């Protein structure tokens, strides 16, 4: 007889889209934090024009990610230089992965789904 565990996923509510501000509020290459439906979300506008949104505090030690430095591949936390890939949120330095949120530019409005 085999006994297997059954783990149930937490109830998930469908994400909703929120307009959090204007694209030009974020200087190129930098990030700014917005509060979206009670959640802190750091939104970044890269030098290549792409937008990315992640959790606001670093999984390693809670550092303010919007104060970090960016390039086309990674975001680097200012506190201990842990780096996270935009593509999947994974840390290149062995920390836990970053939570990411869908973000897009709708006629200059920043739209984040949380």
């Amino acid at each position, binding site marked *: *007889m085999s*006994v297997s*565990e059954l783990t149930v*996923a937490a109830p998930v509510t469908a994400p909703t889209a929120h307009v959090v501000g204007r694209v030009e509020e974020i200087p190129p*290459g930098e990030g700014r934090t917005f*509060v979206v439906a*009670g959640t802190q979300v750091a939104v970044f506008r890269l030098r290549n024009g792409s937008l990315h949104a992640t959790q606001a505090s670093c999984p390693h030690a809670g550092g303010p990610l919007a104060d*970090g430095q960016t390039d086309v591949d990674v975001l680097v936390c200012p506190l201990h*230089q842990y780096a996270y890939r935009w593509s999947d949120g994974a840390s290149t330095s062995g920390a836990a992965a970053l939570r990411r949120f869908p973000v897009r530019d709708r006629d200059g409005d920043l739209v984040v789904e949380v």
Partner: protein
Amino acid sequence: MTAILGGRPEGLTALSLGDDEFDPRSRLVVVGNGMAGARFVEEVLERGGGEQFAITVFGDEPHGNYNRILLSPVLAGDQHEDDIVLNSHDWYADNGVRLRAGVRVERIDTAAKLVSADDGTLTPYDHLVLATGSYSFVPPMKGVRTADGGLLPGVYGFRTIDETRALLAETGTCRRAVVMGGGLLGLEAARALQGHGLQVDLVHAMPYLMNAQLDPEAGAILRKSVESLGITVHLDVLAGQVLGEARVEGVLLNDGRRIDTDLLVVAAGVRPHTDVAVRSGLEVERAIVVDDQLRTDDPDIYAIGECAQHRGEVYGLVAPAWEHAKVLADVLTGTDPDAEYHGSRTATKLKVAGVDVAVMGINTPQRDDDEFLVISEPKRGVHLSVVIRDDKLVGATLLGDTRKVAFLTQAFDRGAPLPEERIRLLVDLSDGAEEVGVAELPATTQVCNCNGVTKGAICGAVADGCGSVGEVMDRTRAGKGCGSCKSLVKQIVESAADGNLVEDPAASYYVPGIPLAKPELMAAIRERDLRSVSAVFAALAPGGVDDAKSKMGLTSLLKMIWGVDFLPEKDGEFINDRVHANIQRDGTFSVVPQMKGGVTTPAQLRRIADVAEKYEVPMVKLTGGQRIDLLGVRKEDLPAMWDDLGMPSGYAYGKSFRTVKTCVGSDFCRFGLGDSTQLGIDLETRFQGIESPAKMKMAVVGCPRNCAEAYVKDVGVVAIGNGKWEVYVGGAAGASVRKGDLLATVDSPGAVITLAGRFMQYYRENANWLERTYDFVPRIGLETIQQVLLEDSEGIVADLDAGMQRSIDAYTDPWGQDGKEPATPGQFRPSLPLIDLPLVPVR
């Protein structure tokens, strides 16, 4: 509820598909989620075992996998518990490994191949690995246990994170502690508790400390070092009874003495956890008996780590456990079905209670013709000895000075030939021999004993393109165990990157993202007129791609090259430079106003006090650079604070010229030979805010008594009378301590300012990014620097002066500038708006 170390954030759960019935993979069950068990799983996954096996790991503790070796620094408060997590719960989920944390395995039905656990579940296996480790041994003492068999409140082992947390909590209320056991763990615990301000008594049953590793003489010297820390040591005595009813109140020693205490830590050794194996009918002697393939007497059950007994040996160190993990992973995954483990020669290097210790082989001569060399310096706390047999090193003990450990480990492991003058094994008889040594070490030398990383593996990582010590450590895991080999790893990486044998072009890049060394990079920037960081990436980076970790170095370099003609880009700056303040661990900032030469006025102090009160600054602190630091300032308050202060920035946050410390010199001091205060103020006025490859700290003292520590500054100036001043360069008193080299003696304050400026410009143009002067000066060589700066051997002195002048002309006070008008939208917006900062309570 206590927090789960390496746990998952609330609300996140792994979804198990429950399709075990259809899983074609064989079932691999690991009992034990400690240093051995978790490493074994990693090794299996590394060999592609995730496709072969459905892996389940049972862990007695509810946590993810953490580095048990580092519990001592956590107890000492040197490391946060989050920093010792090796594999979080997420890691297991991400790798498809089922972690049953907080579930204890009770027995194994070897016939039905089922594991039964204390939560009532039965888990089938095809292969089972026991990695149950050890537990703290509590010697029989009257009164140590309560009626229900648990330890008396106030009595702890020191083996798990939960015990460490409990001890940390107790340090808040306890004044006295007794630590039982004078081995490694006991000494570490004693040191950590004493660091929290407790009065510590160490009770050890043997006649000298660390008797398992040291000889009596070395043990005696260690005792002196430990006692000099303020720890009371009682040797050769047992504790027979623990006093106290509801909680520990004291211990009674067998010689009749009583020690009152609020806390008792038992670190009297460990015992292998073998009860599951015993109950399941496996062969157990001192530990679970295994063969050369780590197999027990049941062909599908294996044992690794501290719970395994191989050829009569039971190891209590992490290195053999990790070797077990490798061999067993080779065998089970079929990567090398014939892999065998033949035992470990244990060479240990560690830091115990602040003292460096390295031990290998035997510690005293055993035969008549054994050679035995001892250097004993009890006053310095140094005791070194080697035992040589038939021209081979068979043992070494290093206490208080482990500089020679790399050579000795090599000689011990490989039987390498020994120098005829045996004393060379223990001391360097000529200068610089140590550096040669790193380059000469054979590739097979094991550098990191925790992770079994050889010099060859480190050099290989450098050759594969790892451009920094950190990258090499990430790639090879060297230095990621106890960390004591980090400096050796660094030396080898440096030697590998600079040497002729291993060519690693990346090591010579000024910043990782642009494949050019500094001179070529500077030439290209000038030639192509690149004035912004993005322009440099577009023109010089492979594919025109930007690189986050290069931006700060490029910003600094461009500022130096272009002065006022630099085109600033805020994203090219580190956050400190973006907001002109130093970021703190909670995301607040520290504000240090300029205070030239460390001289202030009552009006200035009043203003600082008013500002500190108005903005509820949690901490006001005097800095080492003779200034006042306002810590815990919210980002959004910065501009208003600067405005209220009305003082320029002290640049305490930048890779830049920082501050000039001074003594009171000839103004008030009876001994002052020169006006050091004024010269310090003049230097700071001239060089304020100048960016550089790494920070530059200065000091000026009015006499060689050196009250402002000029001998250990990047540039230090000392008045020696008759109007003469000595200029020292390359000093340091941080993580490295180095007395500066005397660059020149000059005969006026004006000449000091000129020479200091020339040196700093030469450093700015030639140093590697983040290379401090204490590395730069020895790398270039004092004589070369003297020839260039004093004799103008390269004909560049006029250029150096002009370059420095360009930067001085470009100086503006950033507080005055951005305070009025933000440089970018939201420059001072909070980055963690929902978190109430600062997190530090106001003092």
